[in-house]
């Protein structure tokens, strides 16, 4: 199968899965106990007022009609109106989205930039104190929740050392330096387990590559160690690292919710969490679905990258 056909198949598949995801999102929210109309009006609302509002919100219609209404709106970019804020859900999401994208992207970048060199050092100097140290760091990294690392970073770097702000967000288009200063701690905390995973995977796949025949050949040809590692082995060790990133995307996107809460970071995760606490049904639906769409699209990008690098994927049919 050609790469293009593989890509088309995956996209069609994605659309189907997303349709299912929208049904689940809607179903999750619409079994919420408690009447939305009562919630908006509070206890002061009379029975008639509640009834009028129910009518206005379309709550008296059967669930499947409400789903169709909602999904038809979503497809046209209209996700309804937030009960809490009174603003269109799509607008609220569009406002928060860049902050979360910046956070996730920074976390991924920090993780890769720190982990790959650490993994290389650990592999090349296998069984030395350096290798041991990175192993310990990686095992500790994976064994603690990201919000724990967030708290450690806040305590050490924001409170004790006063190097970086403990909370908030500045847009990179406004002030790049300040934007990085604000995103470093949450991104570090968010990327911690990813970092640990990538370090270990780089190490183990590089060790394997270094043992293989073509590296022996390169050595015999008189190439320097540095060149062998950087040019030959690392390139082939990249696939497993990509696997880790694909595997960890769910943790990355899930982690955003907790990390944004801890760092008072005004992103999509915090919006979704507050919507849950406020039982803001349209906002919950909108933000959960948006996170699912971004999550699945990122998964698709990783899979396609994988297929570009490794032709065996498309040859095998199933991704």
């Amino acid at each position, binding site marked *: 199968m050609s790469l293009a056909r593989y890509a088309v198949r995956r996209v069609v598949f994605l659309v189907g899965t997303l349709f*299912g995801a929208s049904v*689940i999102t809607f179903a*999750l*929210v619409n079994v919420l106990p408690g009447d939305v109309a009562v919630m908006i009006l509070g206890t002061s609302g009379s029975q008639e007022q509640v009834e009028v509002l129910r009518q206005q919100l379309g709550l008296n219609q059967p669930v499947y009609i409400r789903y169709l209404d909602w999904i038809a709106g979503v497809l046209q970019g209209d996700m309804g109106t937030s009960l809490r804020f009174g603003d269109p859900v799509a607008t609220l999401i569009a406002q928060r989205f860049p902050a979360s994208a910046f956070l996730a992207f920074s976390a991924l970048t920090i993780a890769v930039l720190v982990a790959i060199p650490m993994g290389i050092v650990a592999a090349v100097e296998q069984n030395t104190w350096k290798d041991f140290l990175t192993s310990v760091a990686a095992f500790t990294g994976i064994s603690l929740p990201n919000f724990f690392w967030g708290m450690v970073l806040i305590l050490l770097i924001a*409170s004790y050392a006063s190097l970086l702000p403990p909370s908030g967000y500045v847009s990179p288009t406004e002030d790049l330096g300040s934007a990085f200063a604000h995103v470093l701690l949450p991104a570090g905390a968010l990327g911690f387990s990813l970092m640990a995973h990538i370090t270990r995977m780089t190490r183990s796949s590089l060790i394997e590559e270094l043992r293989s025949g073509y590296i022996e050949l390169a050595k015999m040809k008189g190439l320097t160690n540095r060149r062998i590692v950087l040019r030959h082995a690392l390139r082939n060790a990249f*696939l*497993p690292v990509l696997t880790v990133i694909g595997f960890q995307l769910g943790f990355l996107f*899930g982690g955003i919710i907790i990390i944004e809460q801890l760092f008072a970071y005004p992103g999509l995760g915090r919006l979704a969490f507050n919507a*849950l606490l406020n039982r803001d049904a349209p906002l919950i639906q909108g933000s959960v679905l948006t996170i699912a769409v971004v999550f699945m699209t990122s998964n698709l990008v990783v899979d396609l990258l994988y297929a570009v690098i490794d032709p065996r994927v498309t040859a095998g049919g199933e991704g």
Partner: protein
Amino acid sequence: MAAETETGSARVLDRYQRERLVKLARSIRRNTKALVGLALILGLVVLAIVSPMLISEQAANQMNVQDRFAAPSLEHPFGTDNFGRDMFSRTLLGVRISLYVGITSVAIASSVGVPLGGLAGYAGGAVDDLIMRTMDILMSFPPILVAMTITAVIGPTLNNAILALGLVYIPYFARVTRSEAISVSQEEFVEAAQALGERDSYVLFREVLPNAAAPIIVQASISISFAILAAAGLSFLGLGAQPPTPSWGLMLQQAKQYLTQAPWMAIFPGLGIATTVLGFNLFGDGIRDILDPDANTEFGVTDE
């Protein structure tokens, strides 16, 4: 006659499965990761059984405001919290809660996911498609997001968090079981059982699934560590255990406000989580290495 062949084949099967388990146990002894993991898990299980006998939860929840924020000392080896409660007792009681969360949610996930995945792999065709496409849809959300939404909807309690996590991890068990069931279904003993005219449910539950057990054990061990981390996150957000339960996630949430004042309030529950998660991760990785010595496994991710 049918009964006779059934008991006969069952006996052979039992012996076969027992031999496989003995072999697995022997390999565990030679694998450091699995051995350390197992030792940690057993240690924690002992703590989970013993600590509630020595420390009453009532005493651990007892507030003692004069004693608040006491640093670790002989009297309070892990210090005290913002209510003057002894962190040592609370951290130890947390072991039981943490294991309960991890093991129960994985039990829920596997009791649904394993039969579903087994059925998909064994039956194939339209049944397989229906089950696995549904699983794909469930996997199209980050797990913790769905768990959060479910818990917020049905009410933030520890048991609801466990239920939500159990639901969220179903697809992972279905996937692992399905791929294993496909390969086991092609084994001769399965074909033999089918040729003998055994019922499909018998073949699936007595022959296919028991022989797919090892990778499921790996998945279970790794999932327990994920579930413990996720449950800590839910409690941290107020969507899991509620005060004054001595749950590690909840203790971390309380520690958040007093980080500079009393860092020990975060350190010891954190150590608890780390030890538990590490134990199950190492054990899962170790078994995985034993089953498939050629693959690289790191924390449950395999490059293949």
